[in-house]
Every structure is written in C-alpha cells, then in structure tokens.
C-alpha cells in the first residue's frame, strides 16, 4: 500500500454541533460523551462506488414521474460538486427529496393539513458528469409548519445527499432559496455558526440556466471534504 492521503478536518464554525438546543430534537439524540478523535485509515478514505445502472433515465426529473405534471412552479436546480481543493467530483451519486408545492411530504407521518399531489413523489437522483455537474428538474417546494417552537416554519428547502470518493466525504445537506424571509428564524439554517458557510446553503437565481418560457434556474454548488496538502497517514507496504 502507498501512503494514505488524509482528508482535511472541518474548518471551525462551518459545520453544525450535535448538541444544538434551538433544534429541540437534538436533546435526546446527541452523544454526551466526547467523540473519540481517530486517525483516518484505509476504511475512511475509501467508500462505496455506484454505477450508472443504479439510476434510471428520468430519475433526475421529478416532474415526469406520474401521468400528469405536478402542481407548482417548475424549476431547474443545477450546480457543481467540488472538493475543498476546488477540484470537480465526477460521477458521484446525488440524491434529493423534498415537499410538494403546498409544503406537504408524501410520507405517512407528515400530518400537515396541506394537499398531497398525486403527480409528485418528491424524490430524485442522478450522477455528476466528468466536470462534477448535476441537474434536476423539479418544482419549488412549499414552506411548512413544524413543532420545534411556537409558530415554527421551515423555509422552502430541498434535501441533498452525496457520497463523493470516500466514506468520509459523505454529506447530507439542505438547499434553500434566495430571499426566503424564514431563513433567519430557522434553527436548521442557523445551526452553522459561520455566516459565509451558512449562506452557501442558499442557492442563487441563475439567469444562464433559466429556460425562456419554461422554468427558472437555480444554482447550488456543493463542496465535499478535500485532501490535506500532505499525506499524514502511512499504511504498511504490501
């Protein structure tokens, strides 16, 4: 084995803490003992690889999964997946899920009094291309209430799940929409202390990917953990 090139540790303030009282559900679900800091090994710098046969053509278009078109404003969400060294992450799986235009999830535990849309399941997946680009067609999700605190509403958002090249680069995040007045009240959005890092969760309106007479484009670039400049960890020769 050659040397293992370790991944960078998170920059302070750019990742949430497990214990975050403003998000009430963290109370019983965060570890109370300190995490055990450990060196990265071959286990952490490798990770599952997926092939194009894992997704079907059309899985990236959430507006064409049923007989009719879903209610709501059609949007195009695209962007690039990069690592912390600004290198594109090619051929990696991107999964998304979201509420419908009325702010209702197609899930048995969602009791919000808003209509289900029979033409919208709210899940999609795709791979990045050789330059790390991805693109989804969907509808703009609605805001919805939740019971975290009095009069709590989630800003409109799309859940994103990515793998990258290693088990360590696994990322689940949420994309928000520019100008949403609910963002500053949202504990999820606010859980990231660093303002610049927080703002990066907000997509930008993108004139260039907006298709005339068809749909607005939003751009959401995602950054996965990248390698340290120097290899840290040495594995045995074999």
């Amino acid at each position, binding site marked *: 084995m050659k040397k293992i090139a370790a991944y960078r540790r998170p920059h302070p303030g750019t990742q949430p803490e*497990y214990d*975050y009282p403003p998000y009430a559900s963290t109370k*019983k679900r965060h*570890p109370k003992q300190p*995490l055990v800091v450990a060196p990265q090994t071959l286990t952490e710098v*490798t990770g599952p690889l997926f092939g194009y046969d894992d997704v079907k053509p059309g899985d990236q278009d959430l507006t064409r999964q049923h007989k009719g078109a879903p209610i709501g404003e059609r949007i195009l969400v695209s962007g690039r997946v990069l690592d912390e060294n600004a290198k594109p992450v090619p051929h990696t799986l991107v999964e998304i899920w979201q509420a419908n235009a009325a702010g209702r*999830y197609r899930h048995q535990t969602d009791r919000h009094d808003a209509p289900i849309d029979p033409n919208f399941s709210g899940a999609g997946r795709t791979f990045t291309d050789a330059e790390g680009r991805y693109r989804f067609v969907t509808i703009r999700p609605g805001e919805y209430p939740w019971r975290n605190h009095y009069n709590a509403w989630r800003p409109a958002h799309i859940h994103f799940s990515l793998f990258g090249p290693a*088990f360590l680069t696994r990322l689940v995040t949420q994309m928000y929409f520019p100008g949403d007045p609910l963002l500053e009240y949202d504990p999820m959005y606010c859980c990231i202390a660093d303002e610049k890092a927080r703002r990066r969760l907000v997509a930008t309106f993108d004139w260039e990917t907006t298709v005339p007479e068809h749909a607005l484009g939003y751009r959401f670039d995602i950054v996965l953990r990248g390698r340290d400049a120097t290899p840290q*960890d040495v*594995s045995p020769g074999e």
Partner: protein
Amino acid sequence: MSLYATGNQTVGPYLYIGLSWLTTPRMARSGTPGERVTIEGRLLDGDGVGVADGLIEIWQANASGKYAHPEDTQKKPTVRGFRGFGRIPTNGRGAFRFSTIKPGSVPGPEGSFQAPHLAVAVFMRGSLKHLATRVYFPDEPANAKDPILKLVPPARRETLIAKRVPGRKGALQWNVILQGEDETVFFDF
C-alpha cells in the same frame, strides 16, 4: 484555491422518501466468500426509546480485507458483485437488521493492521450531521491490537463489539445507544 466543505444538515423525518430506494439489508449475495453474519440491533435515544426515523449506512471490506475502491491498492482479490455498502432504515421500534459477510483485516496507521470491522454512519432526525461509529466482531483476537479500538477508553470498547446471539448461528447483536450509561462510542475522523 481552497474552499470549505458545505455544512451538513439533518436528514429530517422524511428521509425515506429520498433514501429508501437504495435499502440493502442483504449486503452479500449467495456465493460471496466469507463467514455470513446477521447483525441486528436498535437505535435508542436518551430515554431508551427506539428512533423510528433513523437510518444506518455500512461500509466494509470483503472477506480478504480488500475494499472495492481504487485507493485500496493491496494485492488481494476483489469479489465481483460485492460492493461493501449497506443502507438500512430503522423500523417503528428503532430496530434494524442486515446480513453480510465478516470482512478481513485491513491495514491501519503506521504499519499496523486493523481487526475486522464495519464502518457505520448513523442518520436521523434530531442529528444535524451523521454520527460515525464502528462494529467489531466478538471472539476476535485481533481486537486487542486494533489501533482504533486502542484509542477508546477500555470501559467503553464493548459498545463497539457485537455480541453473539446464543443458539442462532451467525447472529450478532449490536445496538446504537445515543446517550446514557452504555452510550456508543462515536468517532471524529
């Protein structure tokens, strides 16, 4: 050029909408070389209540101790059709169950070898980023020398070692306990 990684956000309560298509409770198809094991357990919150909206993901080497990944350059055989990945949702009681093969030993830091283990990522509502832990195997002499287990206070190591279920061949039990006396060890890699 240097960027900071995008911030993690919780999977929320409706994670299965987007993630359940890749559910793999059976990680190794029949014919995959290795000792077959079934691992079952529960994901429990600070009140000992099962987490009904959780999901675990597994990453592991094959029985020879080789990862199906280009950065594993060991001269060991890969196994066709064995990806080494599992995604298992919890049920209404917070219980999960999956079957796989016991992995072989893989290299560790500074010339060491790691005992057979599974890497585990835990996702759930109420967790703003996933938790990283590991499953080790019972009656495994290599555990005593494992470079990662050695970093764990001795009293807490047992939380990472699955237990045999008496009378059922290959059945192992391993729980993820988020808080309390038997709190599972979680790592910061």
